[in-house]
């Protein structure tokens, strides 16, 4: 079910009314969980079985860690993480591995594995499950340095109920933000209608739907041309514009989705973590990853980078850890080598940046900052090609055409990209302006009115969220 579809709006409205009915207050968790299952099963009901299996794995293993013998805690933690990863590997990477190892002939195991559909959101809810198992395990260690709150109640049924909501919570179920267990469990308490922060709900939903429906859904009609071999018939200027447009689209699509998720969660009394913090003004790759898909980068830092040793084992090991984390982070996005190349590119950039910091000191001038931000944006944008064109040879063909194509420039296509990219630039400019002149916020209602009008008059045709495929 898409956030932009009518059935979804109806589901949210009905759930909202039932959720806040006073006599049903004690059933809030169940109501929200039931709505989440309906949301997830709308297109493919069978997928719920996988979600339930994933929930059971995490409920049992985390409960065993919390209530079992100290000597068996490690066993259950390893079991929990392994089973979570096993599911992810089977469904997400099984087809790629099977095709490579067994071929894809009819009747073969390879063919069977290749035909398994990729369950929507599996990467997201699996990572949430791992966070539960790891955090419960860490919280049970003597001198727990993380200070996690108590997440597992004594009653198994209560833990099952809480975990079902944690894993299936519909705003973040299929494309994040990836919520960590310690962020979510303490929030599972009865909610009041009067407790809703309507400002957050309104702002997040309006900006989120604007970014998704007006910007991303319209830009996709232009970036549709970034497809082999059709892009070969475009001029270098058109190709540069299209790539720029895709960079804007992917941001608007994903940041828009995250904001809608945050707004919806707020309507039900839950706070989801910020997922995007104006990433395209980053002056370094390190800063970019502190601003882009924050919930994934913090997850990778907490559960992969730090356990690998982080930056505590010398420079060389730090560079290697950065590279490994980004390589795996790239592969998290999909079972294709182009994602691994994309991750490696970012890993290499982070490692080189860290290395360069030891020798190069940039002057602290605003102009230097602008140049740095433009450079980072350009490299990040160039790397998005690997998302759009999963075949590496097509990426090279695109880059070649950007340099050598002799086709005519399509001015309207550039005009279209500019039309829908300017509001994204405006979104960033408004943020920077507000930082300098906070008083300007009093005119924000005009901006929100314009965004609402644009949603009504200028939404694009519905398109699935890009990050659904991950």
């Amino acid at each position: 079910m898409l956030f932009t579809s009518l059935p979804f709006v109806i589901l949210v409205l009905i759930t909202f009314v039932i959720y806040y009915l006073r006599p049903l207050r004690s059933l809030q968790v169940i109501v929200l969980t039931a709505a989440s299952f309906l949301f997830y099963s709308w297109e493919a009901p069978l997928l719920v079985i996988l979600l339930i299996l994933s929930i059971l794995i995490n409920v049992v293993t985390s409960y065993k860690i919390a209530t079992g013998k100290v000597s068996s805690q490690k066993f259950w933690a390893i079991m929990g993480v392994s089973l979570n990863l096993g599911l992810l590997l089977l469904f997400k990477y099984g087809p790629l591995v099977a095709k490579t190892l067994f071929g894809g002939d009819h009747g073969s195991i390879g063919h069977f594995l290749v035909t398994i559909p990729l369950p929507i959101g599996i990467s997201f809810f699996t990572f949430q499950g791992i966070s539960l198992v790891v955090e419960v395990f860490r919280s049970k260690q003597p001198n727990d340095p993380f200070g996690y709150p108590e997440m597992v109640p004594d009653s198994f049924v209560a833990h099952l109920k809480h975990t079902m909501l944690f894993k299936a919570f519909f705003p973040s179920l299929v494309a994040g933000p990836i919520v960590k267990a310690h962020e979510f469990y303490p929030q599972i308490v009865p909610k009041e209608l009067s407790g809703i922060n309507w400002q957050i709900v309104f702002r997040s939903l309006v900006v989120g739907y604007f970014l998704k429906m007006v910007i991303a859904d319209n830009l996709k009609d232009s970036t549709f041309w970034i497809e082999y071999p059709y892009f070969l018939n475009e001029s270098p200027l058109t190709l540069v514009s299209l790539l720029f447009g895709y960079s804007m689209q992917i941001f608007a699509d994903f940041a828009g989705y995250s904001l809608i998720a945050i707004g919806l969660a707020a309507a039900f009394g839950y706070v989801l973590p910020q997922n995007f913090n104006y990433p395209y003004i980053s002056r370094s790759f390190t800063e970019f990853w502190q601003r882009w898909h924050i919930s994934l980068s913090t997850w990778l830092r907490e559960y992969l980078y730090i356990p690998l040793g982080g930056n505590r084992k010398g420079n060389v090991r730090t560079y290697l850890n950065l590279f490994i984390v980004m390589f795996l982070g790239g592969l998290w996005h999909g079972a294709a080598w182009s994602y691994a190349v994309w991750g490696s590119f970012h890993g290499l950039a982070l490692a080189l940046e860290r290395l360069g910091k030891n020798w190069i000191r940039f002057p602290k001038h605003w102009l230097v900052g602008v140049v740095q931000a433009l450079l980072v944006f350009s490299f990040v944008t160039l790397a998005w090609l690997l998302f759009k064109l999963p075949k590496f040879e097509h990426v090279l063909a695109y880059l070649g055409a950007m340099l050598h194509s002799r086709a005519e420039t399509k001015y309207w296509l550039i005009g279209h990209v500019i039309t829908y990219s300017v509001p994204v630039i405006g979104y960033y400019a408004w943020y920077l302006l507000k930082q300098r002149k906070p008083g300007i916020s009093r005119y924000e209602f005009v901006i929100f009115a314009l965004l609402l009008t644009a949603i009504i008059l200028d939404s694009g045709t519905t398109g699935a969220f890009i990050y659904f495929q991950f």
Partner: protein
Amino acid sequence: MIKKSLITALVLLLVYHFALPHISRDYYWIAGQQRANYLRAQKFVHDTPADANVIVGSSMANTLSDELLAGKYEKLTFPAGGSFTGLEIIAGTDRHPKVLWIESNTLLRDADKSMLDDVLSPWRRKLRDTSPVFKEEGRPSNFQVGLLNDLVGKVCRGFAKITGAPKKPKATEHAIDPDVFANIMKANREHLDRAPSEAELTARVNRLGELVDQLTRGGTKCILFEMPIDSTLELLAEPVAVRKAMEKRFPSEKYHWFTFDRDHAWQTTDGVHLVKSEIDKITGKMLRDADAFK
């Protein structure tokens, strides 16, 4: 803030509603094939007479000459789509064209569900009848893209003049670079050389049969046709399978078929879309022969 935003948005909508008919169309551009498809579908639903003659199809039939068809046929042809979208729109609006041409090449492409939801939704239709701002043609961005199209064109041409960049060769009918043409042909071959499953073909051809029979019962003369494509592509697995399934379900003794010369080496821009001179020829022939079917 929330209340103020909502009221201001309402005021903006009202202002735009009254201003739209007076805004100059000097700078106006419907950007992209998807937008153009929606515009075409909405125009058909809201502005076309119920008994107008119609052509349904994909981008192949969409190339048929607008100039020659003007006033005689409405094209409900959708690039990246197929005949089913047009047929479902006709069925969904309870129309009965006098003559309906149905392109068979893209039998395997299902109807565009999003477009059908959009143009057939009763409340959206009512809204669009109330105000043009809710129609595709009323989008504010059409004016902005039109303006930018002009501006970017001027800047690029000015820049080329200053730098003395060599002029591009004048576009010919075969506007695509030969290397690009070869790549597109290769992609076409790969795409069309896959035979569809029997179940898929049967389901599609049966649905088409239901729609054709329903329209025929309502008094519409349905004429089936296959748009010519490059001769190296027309005998690949998919076109052959589609042709066979169509001929089996719609035998020429029972249904009207319009056929083009198979021995002719059709000139295309990319393997599947005819060049303008060929298009003019076949549009003329279709118009002449349509009378014979009456």
